[in-house]
């Protein structure tokens, strides 16, 4: 019994670490610019396809280190470009929130189907980062999960460091707290909006690479990620990075334990049930603030 508990706990921990990475990106954009990005899942797939293209399509040598070195700037550029091209022009409208949702939904449709046309409807499998597993008695700990865990947490720590210690990070926080005030002190608001969108694209894209090498990448695989990140950010409080972290691990564990005890079909019910309860008690989520 104990061994199974440990097994399920580990499963929850790995789920949680990846969810954390995804959710932090989504919550960041919402926190800073109040824009909800429906194409978030498609950027997840973009990371996966980018890695596939480089590793399998072009047969690039050098493994995942090279992939990250190439993919991160590409994702940054894509994120920044998308924000400037389609989100920014809508900002001056009074109903821009709903317009942003719609345009990003259109973008998601466009990207997902572009993947399908370009790469085919079938899933693509990536070479794994590491093979093998650590087997301690009955407890199985795969090296792949460990790498995902370490890189996800590393990514978040790195992101926290950027936010707290760099000029751009501080500017991002300033815009999130008070956009008008930030502009008065000379922070270029539009650039910051673009930058946060770009950073969030990198986070989800990197998540896409990490998860695709464990699972697969497919044209519509991003939707699941979008919904889960969405639940986690709302649960933790949109805009709150710490909240998202807690929420990611709570929901990761919830998924693992509900799946283990009641069965996989109940995971979705449980997730939304818990979300509803938390929102009934705290409409702004675990650590969220209104406004």
């Amino acid at each position, binding site marked *: 019994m104990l061994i*199974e508990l440990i*097994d*399920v706990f*580990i*499963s929850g921990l*790995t*789920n949680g670490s990846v969810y954390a990475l995804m959710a932090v990106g989504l919550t960041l954009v919402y926190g800073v610019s109040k824009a909800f990005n429906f194409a978030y899942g498609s950027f997840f797939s973009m990371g996966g396809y980018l890695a596939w293209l480089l590793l399998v399509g072009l047969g690039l040598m050098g493994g995942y280190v090279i992939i990250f070195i190439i993919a991160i700037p590409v994702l940054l550029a894509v994120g920044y470009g998308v924000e400037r091209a389609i989100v920014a022009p809508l900002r001056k409208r009074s109903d821009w929130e709903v317009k942003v949702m719609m345009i990003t939904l259109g973008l998601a449709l466009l990207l997902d*189907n572009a993947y*399908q046309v370009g790469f085919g*409807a*079938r*899933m*693509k*499998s990536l070479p794994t980062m590491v093979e093998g*597993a650590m*087997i301690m008695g*009955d407890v*199985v700990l*795969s090296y792949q999960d460990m790498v995902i865990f370490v890189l996800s947490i590393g990514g978040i720590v790195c992101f926290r460091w950027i936010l707290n210690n760099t000029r751009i990070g501080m500017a991002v926080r300033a815009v999130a707290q008070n956009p008008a005030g930030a502009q008065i002190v000379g922070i270029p608001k539009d650039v910051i909006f673009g930058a946060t969108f770009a950073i969030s694209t990198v986070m989800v894209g990197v998540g896409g690479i990490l998860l695709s090498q464990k*699972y*697969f990448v*497919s044209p*519509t*695989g991003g939707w*699941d990620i979008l919904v889960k990140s969405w639940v986690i950010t709302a649960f933790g409080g949109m805009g709150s990075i710490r909240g998202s972290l807690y929420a990611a691990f709570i929901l990761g564990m919830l*998924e*693992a*334990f509900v*799946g*283990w005890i009641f*069965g*996989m*079909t109940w995971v*979705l019910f449980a997730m939304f049930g818990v979300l509803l309860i938390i929102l009934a008690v705290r409409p702004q989520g675990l650590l969220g603030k209104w406004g």
Partner: protein
Amino acid sequence: MKKHLVILLAIVCAMAYIPSVQAADVIKVGVPLAMTGPYTDTGDNYWKGIKMAIDEINAAGGLLGKSLEPIRFDTQEFSPERVMQGADYLCGKEKVHSVHAGWAGWGQDVRAYGKYDVPFFCDDGSQAAVDVFKTDPEMYSNIFQLTDTGINQAESMFRVLMALPYEYPNKKAVIITADDAWGTEVGDTLARNFKEKGWEVAMHEIVPYGTREWGPILTKIRKAAPAIIHVEIVSAQEVITFFRQFMKAPSKSILSYGYSIVPREVVETMGKEADGIIGEVQTAMPTPEAPTPEAQAWVDRFVSLYNHPPQAGSWAAYSGVKAWATAVAAVGDETQHDAVIQYIKKNGYKGETGWWKWDDDNVMRAGGDVPIGHYQVQNGELVTIFTDPPTKPYKDFQFITPRWIK
């Protein structure tokens, strides 16, 4: 001004609805398949078979001197009104003389195409579709199923599992299926069979599509250590992730994938990694060696056209077109739909492996010259080890005990 614009717009939209002009020397054939959305890949398998048959007939001078012209319709995600729209488009507007589908709506298609009298061939493989047929066999007489139902296929899977030349260490089975009609139909039938034979079903789990983290389920499996794990989810991503996570610390279990072995990705992405998994395909051409020279010739033609072995459904859909064309040639008039239907019902069709016969429910029951093929992945390719019914080993191909059990 405002009004003019609206009217102009409405006229532009209305233009889309003007019916097209018919050509005289072609026979239109309807092909409703998923061309976009999650079922695109399966739709493609059927299309390859249908296109091959049409091209062959046209190359040989056409049917009754006329050439066949496929009219495609995208069924997308098989929502009820989409299925109905397909029937109304193909049979109502385009006035096709036969319809060749694959997965077509699992009963919804019977309702939609039953309104018309055009021969309709599909690969639903579901009891739900047969149940709809039975409500009014007269009205639905134009519906032909190219494969047997999930229930009968599951019975066949069970027979072969029991016939494997392998000593099961215990009598415990685990069944994991998707939450669709097919999965539950197969899962329930297997569970019943296991229990009747005195086996214990240690776990019978229904999972939603999109599941890719199998940790909690594998934890339970490792504890149960069953002799058989049956996974029935006809979608590559679920079965591949299951297999890879299972292999991190495998239990000594026969891994039976049933129909989930068919998505081409399973063998294409995993290759030799998938060696040892068993599964079944109904109305399928046994590989790597076909049962008859004609069948082998068909496989060779298929491979030269598409550069890969035929997938589930391709041959069934191909045979549907050929069965219809044979009947039309015999009747001598493609517009005599009833006569064509009666001809197929009465005579069946002689295909590459032998006779196809439809039963009173217009279902191509497995057996005879077209049995269900049971496969094992060996050296990265599907190898037929058994055919059923009747259960017998196929040629000289042997079941190999999977590497994780040795």
